[in-house]
């Protein structure tokens, strides 16, 4: 399941969905990314998540397909939120179920590493004074994260 949505999501609901589908899986790994404060002395109100609607789901599907080819996982769910989010809000969810934990952990990390490099989302930090809003830059760590999968 892949979803790009403005609405929030509920971890327990997602977890129960993963559990209900298959009794051959002995491991479930979930990851949630949150809005954090990149603050450098400004009054930060949250983040605005812009995306390229026609490309976003396609890009996540591609990442999901690649992950399923590479790891022995039975289910892989991705939710990514867009629009205005507040500090502490949930942004992204990845849930994986697999017979074994090693594959589940690795698959979730693979998906997040590629999502941060390829999925067309852009974060803008929103501040109390709107003219001070600032686009978030990519960091070196995210750029290099893919090396471990190559």
């Amino acid at each position, binding site marked *: 399941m892949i979803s790009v949505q403005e609405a929030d999501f509920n971890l327990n609901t997602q977890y129960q969905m993963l559990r209900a589908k298959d009794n051959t899986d002995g491991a479930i790994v979930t990851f949630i*990314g949150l809005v954090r404060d990149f603050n450098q002395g400004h009054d930060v109100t949250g983040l605005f*998540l*812009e*995306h*390229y609607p*026609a*490309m976003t789901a*396609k*890009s996540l599907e591609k990442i999901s397909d690649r992950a399923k080819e590479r790891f022995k996982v039975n289910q892989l769910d991705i939710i*990514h939120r867009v629009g205005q989010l507040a500090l502490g809000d949930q*942004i*992204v969810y990845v849930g994986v179920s697999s017979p074994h934990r090693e594959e589940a952990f690795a698959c979730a990390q693979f998906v*997040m590493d590629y*999502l*941060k*490099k*390829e*999925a*067309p*989302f*852009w*974060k*803008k930090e929103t501040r109390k004074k709107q003219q001070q809003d600032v*686009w*978030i*830059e*990519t960091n070196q760590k995210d750029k290099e994260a893919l090396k471990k999968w190559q």
Partner: protein
Amino acid sequence: MIKVLFFGRLRELLDCSQLEITDFEQGTIAQLRLELANKGTKWAEFIAGNNALAAINQEMVEETSMINSGDEVAFFPPVTGG
């Protein structure tokens, strides 16, 4: 005719979210960058350089990738989702 979209910081810097080029038949991403750079100094600065990533029909592509009439091209900054 091709449609060209801009996103994120690039959309704001150029003050343009999309445009259509009616007389575009075929060419590479690099050639389209040169054509857009003629639109003014901001365009030359932000599009001609390689800071803007490119996609054709919602797939990330290279400078030498070919654009055909009817395609949807997009330029955008490095992504920052997740």
